[in-house]
C-alpha cells in the first residue's frame, strides 16, 4: 500500500509540475496542498487505544484495528455517536459490547460527526469480519488536521503492537 501511494504521489507530482509550467502563481500552493492530502489519503493512522482513522479531504473514517476486534471477541452491540455531535480528540464517543465486556471507543481526531455506519449497528459482527472495510464505525469532519501528526502509521502501529503488553 505504501508503495502504491508513492507511485500515486509521483504521477500526481508530474501533473503538478505540468501545472507549474502553465501557471506559475497558483502552482506553489497546489503543490503544498497536494503533499499534505496525499499522505493522509494513503495511510490508515492508528492510536495507542487501537482506533484507526483514514482521511479523505476533510472527512475522516474511523474504526477499530484488527488487534482490537480480536481482543474484544464477538461484538454483539455497537453504540455509535449521533450525526452532528462534536468531539475533541480522545473523547469517549461510543461503546462496543462483546461477549466479554463493554469497551469505550475514543475518537482519534477532533471534529463533527457526519455519518455513522448503520450497517454495523444492524450487524455488529461486521466489525469482527471486516474491521477496515464494512466494519467502519463513523465519519467526522476534522476540525484540526494537525492532530493526524500525533498518530501512528501502519509500520509504527505494528511496532507498537510488539511492545504493547496486551
Amino acid at each position, binding site marked *: 500500500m505504501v508503495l502504491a501511494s508513492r507511485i500515486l504521489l509521483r504521477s500526481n507530482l508530474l501533473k503538478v509540475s505540468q501545472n507549474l509550467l502553465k501557471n506559475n502563481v497558483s502552482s506553489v500552493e497546489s503543490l503544498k496542498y497536494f503533499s499534505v492530502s496525499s499522505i493522509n489519503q494513503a495511510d490508515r493512522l492508528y492510536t495507542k487505544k487501537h482506533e484507526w482513522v483514514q482521511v479523505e479531504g476533510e472527512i475522516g473514517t474511523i474504526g477499530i484495528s484488527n488487534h482490537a476486534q480480536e481482543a474484544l471477541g464477538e461484538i454483539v*452491540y455497537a*453504540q455509535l455517536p449521533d450525526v452532528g455531535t462534536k468531539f475533541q480528540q480522545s473523547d469517549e464517543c461510543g461503546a462496543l459490547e462483546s461477549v466479554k465486556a*463493554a*469497551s*469505550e471507543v475514543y475518537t482519534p481526531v477532533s471534529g463533527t460527526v457526519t455519518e455513522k455506519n448503520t450497517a454495523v449497528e444492524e450487524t455488529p459482527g461486521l466489525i469482527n469480519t471486516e474491521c477496515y472495510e464494512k466494519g467502519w464505525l463513523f465519519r467526522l469532519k476534522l476540525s484540526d488536521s494537525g492532530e493526524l501528526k500525533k498518530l501512528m502509521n501502519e509500520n509504527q502501529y505494528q511496532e507498537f503492537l510488539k511492545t504493547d503488553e496486551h
Partner: protein
Amino acid sequence: MSGAFKLIQCSGSKMLIRPNVFRAFSSSTATSTEKPEIKKSVFISQSHDIFTNLALEDWIYKNFDFTNHHVLMLWANDPCVVIGRHQNPFTETNVSKLVESGITLARRNSGGGAVYHDRGNLNLTFFTPRDRYNRKYNLNIITRALFREWNIKADLNERDDIVINGKKISGTAAKLGQNAYHHCTLLVNANKLHLGESLAKEEIKYVSKATASVRSPIKNLCDVNKTVNVPQLLSAVGYEFLRTSATELVDGGHSQTMRQQGFQLINPTEKWFPGITEIRDLYSSWDWRLGKTPRFEIEKDIEIKADDKDLKMLLKVEVDKGLMTNIELVMPTGEKAPIVTALQNQPYDEANLNGIVNALKLVPTENVKAAINGL
C-alpha cells in the same frame, strides 16, 4: 483524584475493621530498583441504594489510578433489577409491574444481561488498569474463598459463570476504558420468587437489536450450605482477595494480607467523593434508565369482532429513546392506518400499550379509526 483517595485513607483509619493491617502496610518499603508491589484494598460500601452504588463504582473507575493499587468494592442493594448498558428493559423485565411491586429498575454502564438484586445478593467490583483486566483471576478469588470458608466446590463454565452442579450462582459483566472493572453478583439468599417474577417480560413481540440476556437456572449459596450469609461471605472474599498476589493466583497467606491496605468502610457521600451526587442523579434519571433503550418496535396481534367475523389486525409501535414515535394498525388487507393519539411521543411502557390494546378491542370495526384517533 489522589487527594480524594488520601481523604478515604484518613477517614477510613477511624473506621478500619483491621487497623493493624493498615499499620503493617505503612511500615513496609519497596526498593527503588524494582517495580513497586501492587497494593490491594477492599472497599465496603455503606449504601444499599443501587443508584448511589453505581455512582460510587463509576466515580472510582473514573478517578482512581490503579497502576499500583487494585481495589475490590463490595456492595449489596435493596430490591432492584439491573440491566446491561445496551439492553431493552421491556424485553428483560415488566417495567410497569416492577413499579407496582416497588422494585427499582436501574441501568448500569457495563455490558451483559439483566440481574435481580436484593440484600441477599453480594456484588463485587474488581478495579484494575485496563491491561490488568483478568476475569478468570477474579472469579477464582471467589471460588477459592468459597472453598476455604465453607468447603463449597464451585466451577467456572465456558461463559465464565460461577456454577455449582450446573446452576449459576453468579453473573458477570465488565467495562473497559482507560481503567477497567469487572463486576459480578453472588447469590447468597436472594428472594428467588421475586427474582423470577422480576425477570419475566410481558407477552409481546419485541423487535430489537439490544443485547439479550442469556437465561440460566440459578441457585442460592444458602441452598448449598445453610450457614452461608452475606456478612461472612463479604469477609471471606475480602480476605481471599488480600491474601492473593495481585499478578497471579498465588496464595500469600497471612504475610501477604498484612502487606495490603486492608478493609475500608466507604460512605459514598459528596464529602468523600466530590461530584458523586451528580453521577447518582444521572443513573436515577428516566433519560438514562429508559431513554437509553436501543430503538425497538413492538408487534401485537389484535382481534376485533366485526359482525360475525373476527378481524385480525396487527398493532405496531416504534419506540425511539424510550418514546413511542410511531403507532400504527395494520389491517387484514395490509393497509396501514397510522394512529394519532395523545400517547404519541409519550414514554412507552406495558401499561400504556395495554391501554391502546384495550381501547381497540372494545370498538366495532367501522369505528376503529375514529376510536383510535380519539384515544
